[in-house]
């Protein structure tokens, strides 16, 4: 009859599994260093020049970067196009209607939905100053347009 297995009586093998390849522990440090070196080199390239600067200079540089960020965001937040002013409206009123119509007919430009979408909110007083036509006149003008052309 077999004696029952007891772990205390069993001869312990510190490494019971087959050993790794013969030169494994000789080459492992090199492999690991190769893996960490690119990270170290990249880190050094990015931050090496910064860490070489003296502390007051680094603090000043950081302040300049922060202030520059604020200034840039301020300038970028300004509206790109100034809204129409009273002077520009007056100048538009001074243009004769016939000349304005000739200009619009001569140019090949078309008003698109995008143009309308980019316009600021309609200003009734602004349009009233140079759009002086009754609803009937406007309807006649629209009816006179060829139906095969889509402007909007």
């Amino acid at each position: 009859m077999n004696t029952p297995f007891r772990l205390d009586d069993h001869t312990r093998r510190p490494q019971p599994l087959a050993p790794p390849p013969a030169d494994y522990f000789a080459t492992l440090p090199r492999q690991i260093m190769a893996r960490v070196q690119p990270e170290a080199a990249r880190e050094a390239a990015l931050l090496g020049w910064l860490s070489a600067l003296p502390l007051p200079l680094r603090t000043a540089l950081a302040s300049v970067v922060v202030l520059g960020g604020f200034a840039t965001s301020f300038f970028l937040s300004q509206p790109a196009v100034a809204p129409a002013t009273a002077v520009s409206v007056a100048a538009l009123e001074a243009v004769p209607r016939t000349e304005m119509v000739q200009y619009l007919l001569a140019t090949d430009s078309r008003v698109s939905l995008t143009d309308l979408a980019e316009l600021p909110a309609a200003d009734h007083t602004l349009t009233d100053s140079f759009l002086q036509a009754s609803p009937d006149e406007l309807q006649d003008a629209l009816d006179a347009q060829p139906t095969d052309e889509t402007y909007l």
Partner: protein
Amino acid sequence: MEDQEILVKFADPATRNVAFNQLVRKYQSKLYWHVRKMVIDHDDADDLTQDVFVKVWNHLGNFRQDASLYTWLYRIATNECLNFLSSKRRKFFLPLHDVAAELTQKVEADPGLAGDEIELRLQKAILRLPDKQRLVFNMKYYDEITYEQMADITGTSVGALKASYHHAVKKIEQYVNEESRHD
């Protein structure tokens, strides 16, 4: 080179590489075998051991010396092993027994155990333990780590570790005896 000297030299950029190289050479064998006994396969153990040292490189600068370097390294290696085994289960939707079966197959194919029937049964019995209990067993039985150090590594109380090891030994002896009766 002593651990303290390694840490001091690692903190200095001029001697960092030398210090880390020394650290790898000092602990590579212990960590490799710790990992290998958990994942069985050499290639997996190789990948994990390298990952452990890459993590050590990345975090050694933040190492707080309230624990020893030795237990800190073991903790990283232990976490890597547990994450590897649980991700293996998640990735392949494998239940517990299938991972154990896969590891058992690798143990049976291991040339180091060829011809040693009792040792093979012992290894198969160890693989039947839950991962964390297997870690405790390996650290106590093979690496002869004290319960206090194991408590640092695993974040478990000494009492719980003693109980876990005691139960692991009982389960292993029972399994080996049952297997012997079947033959």
